[in-house]
């Protein structure tokens, strides 16, 4: 049951430094913990609380509100079939029933080999590509039952070119030390200096 490892901790500290108030980093840090372990462990929540100065209970309070943050182990691949209105109109329910039959689990369940967790989710913003799904938040568009079977066999062979659950963006924001404008606490700041600019005055020579 893992706290953040040294590599995650380095990334965590870089993330925290981008906010005027450390607590704002909570959700990105919970994602980071999930990236490390595949889900958010209790130890990781306690560690994150220490990093941003809140109690483990407060971290849990935030964590438990958001659907993407899993507090129990899930499969290597989350297969989230969209059941929003546009996908519903184009057969998402058939696709979900098909997935249940092929995988032998209901939405929320994980296959016995621990590979795949099935979810029926609300709109994922690919409405013109209905019916659609996401595998670890990567889109598959206009998915037929044949496409789904193909996907499952690729996932079972780890051959779908999808990173394990917990990985989101492949690129992280990184701000070089010298390029930073500088983050200040919310109190005690005055009017930004550029607000005094009046280029037209200069043009007039006045």
């Amino acid at each position, binding site marked *: 049951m893992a706290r953040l490892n040294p590599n995650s901790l380095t990334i965590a500290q870089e993330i925290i430094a981008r906010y005027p108030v450390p607590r*704002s980093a909570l959700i990105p840090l919970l994602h980071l913990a999930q990236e490390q372990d595949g889900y958010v462990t209790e130890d990781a929540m306690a560690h994150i609380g220490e990093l941003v100065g809140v109690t483990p209970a407060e971290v849990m309070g935030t964590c438990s509100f958001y659907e993407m943050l899993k507090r129990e182990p899930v499969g290597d691949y989350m297969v989230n079939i969209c059941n929003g209105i546009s996908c519903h109109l184009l057969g998402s329910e058939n696709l979900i029933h098909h997935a249940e039959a092929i995988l032998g689990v209901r939405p929320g369940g994980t296959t016995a080999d621990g590979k795949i967790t099935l979810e029926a989710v609300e709109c994922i913003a690919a409405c013109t590509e209905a019916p659609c799904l996401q595998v670890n938040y990567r889109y598959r568009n206009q998915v037929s039952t044949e496409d789904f079977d193909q996907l499952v066999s690729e996932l079972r062979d780890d051959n779908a070119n999808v990173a394990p659950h917990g990985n989101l*963006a492949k690129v992280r924001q990184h701000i070089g030390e010298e390029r930073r404008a500088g983050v200040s606490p919310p109190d005690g700041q005055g009017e930004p200096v550029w607000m005094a600019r009046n280029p037209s005055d200069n043009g007039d020579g006045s």
Partner: protein
Amino acid sequence: MTAVAAQDLKIITSRFDVEDGHTLAGYERTGGYAGLRRAMEMAPADVHGEVRTASLLGRGGAGFPAGVKWGFCPPGVWPRYLVVNGDESEPGTYKDRLLMERDPHQLIEGCLIACYALGLSQCFLYVRGEMAHAQERLAAALNEAYEAGYVGANVLGADDFSVDITLHWGAGAYIVGEETALIESLEGNRGMPRLKPPYFPASIGLYGKPTIVNNVETLANLPWIVSNGGDAFAAMGAESSTGTRVFAVSGHVVTPGVFEVPFGTTTFRDIIFDPRYAGGLHPGRTLKTFIPGGASAPWFFDEHLDIPLEKATVDKAGSMLGSGAIVVMDDTTDVVKACHNVVRFFARESCGKCTPCREGTSWLEKILSRILAGQGRPQDLDLLMDVCDNISPGINWPPRQTTICPLGPSAVSPIASALERFRSEFEAYLPATPVSVTSTSGVAS
């Protein structure tokens, strides 16, 4: 002919077909960051003036004029923040994700212009958690823009303009698209809307400071407005709905897609039936109904097809353009199931803070479920309307609210629309012999 030119003009989707439009090289080659340079030659207040002149309506759903919203920052209170609402989740809505994935620098440039105009000292770019590709495109674009001197310390070499843009990402919650819930989430809390007043975070927002919350599409318009002038923007589209807007047309159409069209002059008939857009219905099908502006909007029918995609006209006709999502249903649609689908969405996504929404949406969903299961009771259709009336007294448009945010009343829209128009289809689901109350899966009325 100018009308044709206007039809073809793309303001914010112009780089969707440019293969490297998401990179700094591709963006600079196609005129990128010219708006920022132009803005920085102007006084900040004059940049704000151009946005007012443009009459740019917010593109997130409520359609409030951006220039006016900007003006709500109380004078002399610092710092002020910019929060970008990239938490696009309204069913049917699908434009901000493309704007973030395909033209991230345009959004970044829009953020910088807003920060310059209003003295916003830091920008937080809140991207929906499920949009991993948008997050990495924005991260890559921000890294490039920082390196090249567009973002961070001394923007474009200026010794007096420095601003950080912090990429932030959510973790799955529709309600976070409501701007005060977005701020709660950005502060590391459960994403529940804040009690109003204050009505606008521009007075009290992030960390209790004046905060401008703008939608992705709204900000993406700023580079063009500053480069070409607010007047040129206002000259496009209709008088009260200026510029262009991006609409996603999905459901039972031949060529579903995301289209940028002149705002206010294109009609629903154009965008649904024109081969340049959604291409109409499949052969032999007829139109049953369509949702004009996302799942929260009351439904429209045949008689509404010639209404222009213009805010005031659509409002007056009893619905809204909302977030630019048009969902088309043909005659093969089971409206009871469609209605249940939309109501289930709101029941699942209710944050639970206000009783009428928390209890009301889940009861609506349960009652519709039992109707679909053939377990409906004769009084259920009236009961649905009664629950709706408790969430939104009078069931009118625009809705009255008994809740802090509009999520609860949004669940009323599909029921009121579908029941009024297709009551017989609901009745057809009711058993011929009423089921005994004790035999129904524990649901009491």
